[in-house]
């Protein structure tokens, strides 16, 4: 398929703007661009057809089952999109006077109120634009907290080896050193190792619960106590909140600060890799450090309060990804008090059901009930028959099923992390299970065959080594 640049024809264009109705001004030559601006020249029909063709080469939740572990690819309600398209939100300039944006401020205020209730946190910010951004904001709050206490020794953040790569990278971006602790065989935190790792240099611990194996850390109160007793704070990575939202609150588990992925748990769409929103919630003692401004409700209406002298500052311009926050609010308003925990419970049910079906041939890492996701391993099959997690993933592509997450968490070799979410029906799960099992059986009979997969997709396996050794990162005109 051609690129837009390859379809370009000199002189082709659309008619978008009316002629200029004032005198045309130009600037002195020294200010002006000399090099040619070589963007494609196309008709609107060209553009329309091009992107329709690209759409056919993409797989969305609307195309089929998308059990991508840790990403919570649940159905994205279209009412969210309808709300976020209302001109009363899309046409609002971020620097309009407060009394003209009371609707927007109420959206932020209610999102804070409702998500604060769901997470057990006292204050929130919606400035961070993505999960990693939210993590960074939280760890910055920890940094400011210890600074304010006059404690220069808190230089370390503890991160389990089962954590998502963003966790240790975040800690380093906030100026901390990372202390890795190895998990137990069940992927849970080893309390003894944690006790040995905490000390006067501990700024905090970053933890996901359920963990990245889909197992609930049942010792969570003890874990948060250990860190607090050592003078550190505990951060909740909200990537897996879909398992427990409305059922268990991170605030009740002892966490001081949480980040949420509104584009996972709260159904805002992933957009092919963004925009998301990494909302952050914290207990009241950390609230003074949140990015500015914070939304406050007064008798006269909502205001944007910048009077936070101890704030960490800003992590993004304006108010974060406002329209994404809006979509999340729409979702919470839809589901309400009962719908939120019901979604979580169904996510867990679907995961356990699918796990049971797949356990008939796949090696399941989880023992007992899992939470909203579970992990399979192809370690044995890789050794004995050279059939890897990657091979299973590639074979699934031919069946219109998006593969699960592969090779994460790192503590499980040849991992496949499966998260069906609550919006899938039993029929979809059964069909998917049949496909997974059929692929497995075929691969065991004929390992060579699976190495050729996928065969029905737009392209076959790309040569990633060549792509990295000799990077071609733009089209050369």
């Amino acid at each position, binding site marked *: 398929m051609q690129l837009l640049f390859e379809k370009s024809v000199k002189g082709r264009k659309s008619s978008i703007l009316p002629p200029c109705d004032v005198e045309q001004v130009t600037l002195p030559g020294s200010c002006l661009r000399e090099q040619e601006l070589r963007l494609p020249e196309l008709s609107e029909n060209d553009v329309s057809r091009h992107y329709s063709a690209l759409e056919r080469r993409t797989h969305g939740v609307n195309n089929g089952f998308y059990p991508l572990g840790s990403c919570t690819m649940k159905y994205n309600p279209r009412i969210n999109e309808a709300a976020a398209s209302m001109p009363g939100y899309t046409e609002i300039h971020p620097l309009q006077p407060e009394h003209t944006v009371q609707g927007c401020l109420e959206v932020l205020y209610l999102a804070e109120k409702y998500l604060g209730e769901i997470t057990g946190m006292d204050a929130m910010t919606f400035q961070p634009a993505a999960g990693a951004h939210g993590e960074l904001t939280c760890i910055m709050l920890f940094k400011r907290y210890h600074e304010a206490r006059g404690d220069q020794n808190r230089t370390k953040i503890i991160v389990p080896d089962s954590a998502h790569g963003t966790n240790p990278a975040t800690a380093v971006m906030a100026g901390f050193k990372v202390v890795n602790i190895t998990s137990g065989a069940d992927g849970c935190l080893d309390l003894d190792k944690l006790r040995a790792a905490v000390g006067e240099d501990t700024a905090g611990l970053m933890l996901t619960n359920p963990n990245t194996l889909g197992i609930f850390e049942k010792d969570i109160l003890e874990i948060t106590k250990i860190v607090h007793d050592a003078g550190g704070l505990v951060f909740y990575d909200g990537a897996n909140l879909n398992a427990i939202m409305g059922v268990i609150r991170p605030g009740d588990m002892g966490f001081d600060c949480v980040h949420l992925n509104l584009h996972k748990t709260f159904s805002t769409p992933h957009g092919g890799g963004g925009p998301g929103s990494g909302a952050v919630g914290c207990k009241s003692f950390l609230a003074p450090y949140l990015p500015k401004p914070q939304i406050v409700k007064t008798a006269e209406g909502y205001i944007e309060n910048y009077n936070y002298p101890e704030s960490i500052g800003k992590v993004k311009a304006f108010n974060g990804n406002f329209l994404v926050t809006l979509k999340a609010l729409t979702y919470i308003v839809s589901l309400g008090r009962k719908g939120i925990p019901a979604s979580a419970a169904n996510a867990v049910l679907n995961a356990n059901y699918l796990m049971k079906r797949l356990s008939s041939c796949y090696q399941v890492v989880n023992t007992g009930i899992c939470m909203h996701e579970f992990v399979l391993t192809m370690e044995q099959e890789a050794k004995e028959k050279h059939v890897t997690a990657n091979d299973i993933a590639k074979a699934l592509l031919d069946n219109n099923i998006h593969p699960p997450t592969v*090779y994460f968490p790192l503590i499980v070799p040849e991992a496949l992390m499966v998260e069906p979410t609550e919006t899938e029906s039993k029929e979809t799960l059964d069909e998917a299970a049949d496909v997974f099992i059929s692929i497995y059986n075929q691969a065991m009979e004929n390992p060579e065959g699976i190495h050729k997969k996928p065969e029905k997709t737009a392209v076959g396996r790309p040569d*990633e*080594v060549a*792509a*990295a*050794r000799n990077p071609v990162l733009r089209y050369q005109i």
Partner: protein
Amino acid sequence: MNILRNLRYTKSHEWVEILEDSKIRTGLTDFAQHALGSLVFVNLPEEGDEVTAGESYADVESVKAVSDVNAPASGVVSAVNEELLDAPEKLNEDPYGSWMIEISEVSDLEELMDADEYEAFCREEE
């Protein structure tokens, strides 16, 4: 598995060539390049950098992973094989001909295995 007789080897699969009294050359063994897979990039130190025995002085990237390369001795980097920056695949194609750095002012040279000992070591690892 290729192992050269005139070289010495570390437990983390680096080879060492002793050039002079306190100067050595080092690189990755055939075992290492095979385990790492196709390498796409190498991050090398600069001449004049100090290195510490047993600690990482460089890393090599494959498509999906990054691995540290450890210094077999302490000292100062006296030469860097810059060819590898443009052609990291040489580490896969010719591991023993693709030295990574030279270390001078060598001290704390780690315990090295000879070819036979290394061969036995590799067999155990597999």
